[in-house]
């Protein structure tokens, strides 16, 4: 039989027992809906987590360090040149790293512990330089109070919530920041106010400024341009508070994370002496302790990491951690798919039942068709087509149900999140591939369910079938 005829006869047969076939199809729809609902929840959660982690730099950032740094306490590696022969991590090296395919930007990692004065009270904390690009790619700054830095090197500062609390004298509970303090109320008295940062500037000449007091000198170890001794001069810099952020933009740094953020360009210009005495230099050719290398696609991290290592630097990323996370979500999706498929499995039993009932009801009709010349394949194809049609309709309706269910749960969840003072989130995602896969899966399950009834119908003895009343 031609495809059109098989389809036509199948649809006609389905219409003949419309109530029973509709019930079976609804059963399939419920199965597909539960599958779609479960998987879209898994995908949505994964996307939510990925967005957050990607913006935090966990996925797409590589930290490159020079091997020449003797204080680099990373384990000695066998590959690459020995520390003494390793290249300097300077501006030409930074530019070269930026040229590696896939690299979006490479910027020096500037952080230092210093004293900040507010209302004449000193506060000691870690300060970090933030590249201007973080405005759009670090979601810690998305929901903050105030605004991001107005330009690349302005004397402005963004505070992390816990430091804002410290400035205002709000004592956090031990071991955790105060969850009850409202970020908007915290920011109100601080935004627009000034902080004074006292820091140690590292200058190229031993004593150029009369106010400067040389505190230490060291041997030059960075090549000819940097051979001179340096001085450390105490400086002050007024900084305007422009923002207070609830989330932690520096969360991947663990215990070394900063609570105050300066524009990176400003931090570079200030030539602040960093803890290991090697960091930003006052010379024209600065050498960096470490660079943060941001990659466009997390999948490119291993390749870029290798390229940096080949250049003679140490490179570190937490791609393994991201792999574990992906593995976790793969397992979660697997579990959700299994639970979702259970309903579809039950529905497939419904298909078998419906088709077996149809064989009993249409036994005589099958006998007539065989007497008129229908082959086993014709009869089998007809029952397959009926099963497939139920799967197709059930799949399409199920995807619609699943999508609607997802929107409903998303809506309800956002009401809940709002009450818990969390920003709204899209925890539900139904990508096109899921829609198509769910319908295809529904058809495949239906066809598999039709295997036994179709084979049974095809094997039917026409003499017996025609005798049957």
């Amino acid at each position, binding site marked *: 039989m031609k495809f059109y005829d098989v389809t036509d006869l199948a649809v006609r047969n389905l219409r003949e027992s419309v109530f029973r076939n509709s019930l079976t199809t609804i059963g399939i729809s419920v199965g597909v809906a539960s599958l779609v609902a479960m998987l879209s929840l898994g995908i949505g959660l994964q996307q939510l987590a990925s967005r957050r982690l990607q913006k935090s730099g966990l996925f797409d950032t590589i930290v490159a360090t020079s091997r020449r740094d003797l204080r680099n306490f990373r384990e000695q590696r066998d590959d690459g040149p020995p520390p003494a022969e390793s290249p300097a991590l300077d501006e030409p090296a930074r530019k070269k790293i930026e040229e590696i395919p896939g690299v979006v930007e490479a910027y020096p990692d500037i952080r230092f512990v210093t004293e900040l004065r507010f209302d004449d009270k000193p506060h000691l904390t870690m300060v970090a330089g933030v590249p201007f690009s973080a405005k759009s790619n670090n979601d810690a700054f998305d929901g903050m109070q105030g605004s991001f830095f107005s330009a690349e090197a302005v004397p402005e500062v963004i505070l992390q919530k816990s430091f804002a609390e410290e400035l205002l004298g709000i004592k956090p509970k031990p071991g955790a920041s105060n969850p009850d303090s409202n970020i908007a109320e915290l920011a109100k008295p601080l935004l627009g106010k000034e902080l004074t940062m006292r820091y140690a500037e590292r200058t190229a000449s031993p004593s150029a400024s009369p106010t400067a007091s040389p505190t230490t000198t060291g041997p030059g170890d960075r090549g000819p341009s940097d051979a001179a001794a340096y001085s450390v001069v105490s400086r002050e810099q007024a900084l305007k508070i422009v923002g207070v952020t609830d989330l932690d933009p520096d969360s991947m740094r663990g215990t070394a994370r900063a609570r105050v953020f300066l524009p990176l360009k400003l931090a570079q210009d200030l030539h602040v002496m960093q803890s290991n005495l090697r960091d930003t230099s006052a010379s024209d050719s600065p050498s960096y302790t470490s660079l943060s290398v941001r990659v466009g696609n997390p999948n490119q991290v291993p390749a870029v990491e290798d390229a940096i290592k080949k250049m003679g630097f140490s490179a570190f990323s937490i791609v393994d951690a991201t792999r574990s996370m992906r593995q976790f979500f793969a397992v979660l999706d697997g579990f959700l798919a299994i639970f979702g498929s259970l309903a579809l499995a039950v529905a497939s039993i419904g298909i078998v039942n419906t088709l077996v009932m149809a064989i009993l009801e249409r036994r005589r009709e099958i006998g007539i068709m065989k*007497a008129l*010349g229908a082959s086993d394949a014709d009869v089998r194809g007809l029952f397959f087509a009926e099963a497939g049609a139920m799967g197709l309709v059930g799949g399409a309706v199920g995807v619609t149900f699943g999508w609607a269910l997802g929107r409903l749960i998303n809506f309800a969840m956002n009401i809940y999140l709002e009450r818990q003072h969390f920003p709204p989130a899209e925890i539900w995602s139904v990508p096109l591939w899921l829609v198509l896969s769910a319908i295809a899966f529904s058809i495949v399950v239906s066809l598999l369910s039709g295997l036994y009834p179709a084979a049974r119908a095809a094997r039917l003895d026409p003499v017996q079938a025609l005798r049957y009343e």
Partner: protein
Amino acid sequence: MPNSLAVRTQSLCRHYQMGEALVRAVDGISIDIGAGEFVALLGASGSGKSSLLNLIAGLDRPTSGAVIVQGNNLAALSREQLAKYRLHTVGMVFQSFNLIPSMSLLENVELPMRFAEVDRRERSALARQSLERVGLSGRLAHRPTELSGGEQQRASLARALINHPKLLLADEPTGNLDSRTGTEIMELLHSFNQSLGMTVLMVTHEQALAEKYAGRMLHLADGKLVDDVTNNDVRNDDVRNISSVEASAPRGETP
């Protein structure tokens, strides 16, 4: 008289096991039926008439022996080949008409052509012609339940003839009809036999009908052929043309 062989059975047996008893439905029947013959199979209930017909129709397989139609031994054919044989070589008419109730008459008649993969437009035209030939051109869209028994049997005949079979097998085609309607159906069968040169093998209980229309009568008892009578009295010279059959067909019968 026919000049070539349409059907040959050789020591044909069909035995069933029913519990511990062995039922010999067809027990060693050997017959030759010539092309264009009109043969009636007569016998009491359980004599093996329908079983023999099913074997010749390729609906059943013999326990032993052979059924040879157009040079092919049906016992040696695969299921697929048997299906093709039923589709192209044999047309069947049943006592209970066996039209599919969910389809209109036109769709019922078109059905064998779907299996033969005939183009949609062509099969619709052929089915209309076939239904016209049996006087049902006004009933194309009706469902079988909306028709009388006679009309249903005529539709069944139209369906049997749609693929131009060489062999028309009728299993008590008048069994569910009153005598007048039965006669009309027999007239149709007779006319197709005469005008199309089609071999007709008909199972019947009705000796009178057989004597009137069949050129040969095979009597069966307990699965065996007990008598083979050539009916010289059968008219073969006054076949009415089909249009006159149509004209005489009763109209507007109630189901």
